[in-house]
């Protein structure tokens, strides 16, 4: 009741409305960077994982090396992964995206492959009997049936990516992680808590969004559920 600048920022409180209003710009920029890094890495990961999964499905010899390499990549801790890419990409956003792409590959390839493998052989034969060629079979029968499993992988990959972007703060491109990192160095409690909570909010929102997309894309699964 005595200190002159007696607001929650001066008192360094965990929860602080003044922080939200005075640093709105910084928070917005960090959130946007967070979303961009996540979206870029998940989309790129998907673009690489789909052909890999198809290759592993079509060519028996390819399955073991594809799954093996992606599993090894997944075992490498995030900080080490980003560090290993440093000589290639330098201190850049590309480094963070590349690292996250490598992580998402494991989850995506594994789930897409599991989804494709779970398509019943009878279904495939029925489609062939109706005169479906290989491409049409893949696009209109196999991929839609693999979708629920593949989407489960995509959701896990996205949520993981949202969380791992924060580690990108080590190279200065960590979205909300940058705020956590600088908040740590300046002992700024409100900034660390706000950025952390926003990370979780983004992860949950992305998960729900993808769940909604999955429901829209696979209306036939709802009847059985």
């Amino acid at each position: 009741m005595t200190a002159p600048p007696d607001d929650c920022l001066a008192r360094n409180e965990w929860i602080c409305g003044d922080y939200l209003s005075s640093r709105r710009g910084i928070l917005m920029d960090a959130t946007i960077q967070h979303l961009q890094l996540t979206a870029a890495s998940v989309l790129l990961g998907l673009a690489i994982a789909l052909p890999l999964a198809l290759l592993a499905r079509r060519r028996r010899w390819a399955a073991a090396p594809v799954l093996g390499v992606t599993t090894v990549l997944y075992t490498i801790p995030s900080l080490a992964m980003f560090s290993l890419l440093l000589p290639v990409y330098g201190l850049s956003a590309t480094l963070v995206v590349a690292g996250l792409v490598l992580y998402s590959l494991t989850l995506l390839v594994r789930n897409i492959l599991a989804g494709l493998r779970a398509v019943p052989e009878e279904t495939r034969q029925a489609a062939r009997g109706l005169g479906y060629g290989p491409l049409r079979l893949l696009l209109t029968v196999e991929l839609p049936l693999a979708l629920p499993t593949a989407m489960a992988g995509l959701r896990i990959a996205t949520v993981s990516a949202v969380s791992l972007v924060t580690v990108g703060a080590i190279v200065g491109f960590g979205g909300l992680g940058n705020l956590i990192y600088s908040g740590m160095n300046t002992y700024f409690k409100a900034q660390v808590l706000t950025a952390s909570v926003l990370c979780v909010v983004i992860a949950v929102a992305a998960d729900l969004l993808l769940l909604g997309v999955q429901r829209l894309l696979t209306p036939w699964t709802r009847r059985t559920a």
Partner: protein
Amino acid sequence: MSVLTDTWSWLTTSAHWYGPDGIWTRLGQHLFLTVVCLLISCALALPVALVLGHLGKGGALAVNLSNIGRAVPTFAVLVLLLLTPIGSSGQWPTVIALVLFSIPPLLTNAYVGMREVDPDVVRAARGMGMTGAQMMRRVELPLALPLVLTGVRIAAVQLVATATLAALVGGGGLGRIITAGFNLASTPQVVAGAVLVAVFALLVEGLFEAGRRLVPDRTGDRETV
């Protein structure tokens, strides 16, 4: 190419291996953190998971815990703990964060393992007059063991990764070589640290994979001796 040779010469400089910041010290800290935290989280999570799995209760909790663990950024929790009063007491923030993040895989896998035991086998055991504790110890646990061990393996790899991140908040371990390399703007040191961390993580994964092969899989046909 020069990065590779520089990294190699960093790794082969004996001065980098010894002393309080040397590789051996950091490796020892990393190993100690991983082993101690794995023991703590096994002691906390496994009894709960096995009993819940035996009783068939709390399934939603066991499964959702993994999702929550994935959505919350490790880095954020490390920094948040550092800024709490616990943060001033040495390794505690690191230990708590490590334990928190290794509990979900342990809990989920052990629970699922117990639930997936063939209900006919459980009924047969009950028919033979076994008590709940006997059934758990002599029937369900041996059958659930492969999945329980999978959980322990995932938790161990997760611990190695989290312990690496702990370097960002001043914890010990191999991650310190990486963060020190970033502070010195020494790419060879960053890469050397990353290589050490990656090799360590892969060794831990390999060790558990080897251990899993030693455990007989009793879920298959009656081939067991």
